[in-house]
């Protein structure tokens, strides 16, 4: 089962098309195993990218060195997935009790 411990989801805000192009270049780097939840399209729209823990430093250095603004949308993806699993189990047991 794939786990996402330490993986983050970054919300990136670009200021011009040049930065959008830089993000598109980043998208091409397959070794980083990035998963673009919202792809880079236009400076008006943010980009959301799921970054595996192993690629975090490289991605953040890339963004910061190019003066591209970002914030951390999800700090630890695995913890949110765990929370979701607990919710599902809880709701299932409530249903079983009701039945």
């Amino acid at each position, binding site marked *: *089962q*794939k786990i*996402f411990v330490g993986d983050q*989801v970054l*919300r990136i805000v670009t200021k011009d098309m040049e930065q959008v192009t830089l993000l598109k270049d980043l998208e091409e780097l*397959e070794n980083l195993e990035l*998963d*673009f*939840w*919202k*792809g880079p*399209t236009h400076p008006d*729209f*943010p980009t*959301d990218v*799921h970054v595996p823990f192993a690629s975090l430093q490289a991605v953040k250095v890339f963004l910061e060195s190019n003066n591209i603004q970002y914030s951390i*949308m*999800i700090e630890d*993806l695995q913890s*949110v*997935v765990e929370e*979701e699993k607990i*919710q*599902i189990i809880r*709701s*299932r047991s*409530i*249903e079983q009790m*009701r*039945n």
Partner: protein
Amino acid sequence: TDSFNYASYHTLDEIYNWMDVLVSEQSNLVSKINIGSTFENRPIYVLKFSTGGTKRPAIWIDTGIHSREWVTQASGIWMAKKIATDYGKDAFITSILNEMDIFIEIVTNPDGFHFTHTKNRMWRKTRSINSGSSCVGVDPNRNWDAGFGGAGASSNPCSETYRGPRANSESEVKSIVDFVKSHGNIKAFISIHSYSQMLLYPYGYTKTPAPNQQELHSLARKAIDALSSLYGTSYRYGSIINTIYQASGGTIDWTYNQGIKYSYTFELRDTGRYGFILPANQIIPTAQETWLAITTIMEHTYNNPY
């Protein structure tokens, strides 16, 4: 189906069981059609809401072609129950169903959906094996025969937007294509995704405006006004290429080219905090507001026969 928890996420087995219960409860209105099977041999089911007749004008809704978008499938379940509950009580749904059929495919990518529940919560594609590559799956929303292979889709099997070896290579896509063609009387086709809060119409593969762009645009505005009226959720709307990005081989570009004028695709909530792991307490509000937009499109389709 009254005791089913609509405010929780469910596995494929639970959803398929729920469908059977719904059909057994309202067999005069709802039936289950098997339109094909997946790469891993799971059945692909569509719920048909009909009060009689064959191949009447119809409205199609599919949810969750990208398996990880769980709020989408969950909204599809809620909507199916809503239709079943409202028939005979709500004047609008009753009048629609007295003249038209509604088809809902709740789990459009069953292999991928099962995989998100068991192996990888973030899985998006189908689970077909790509010869010559260790990477699995095709993006089914790049696999349709509309600008297939053009810009905005990848030829790399390891990419999340891999288009596949050829158009309709994915049985999940081909099953819908065969169904739509054999039916021949679908008037509105609504394909639902999450999460970017958008309502989009063709095209995605070309900048050429769709011939009905003006009508599609004003209907989109009306639908979004209705959606926003419930919780104030803000949506963007427009053609795919102008609103998000160029994407070839997409679902509604194919349906539009097939002659289904009212072809739309939704991107449901979130506002950018949770992404695809939107908390379950958001399911019902998301489904409720989306339903208002969908009924707006249905009503327009009903009032503007073509």
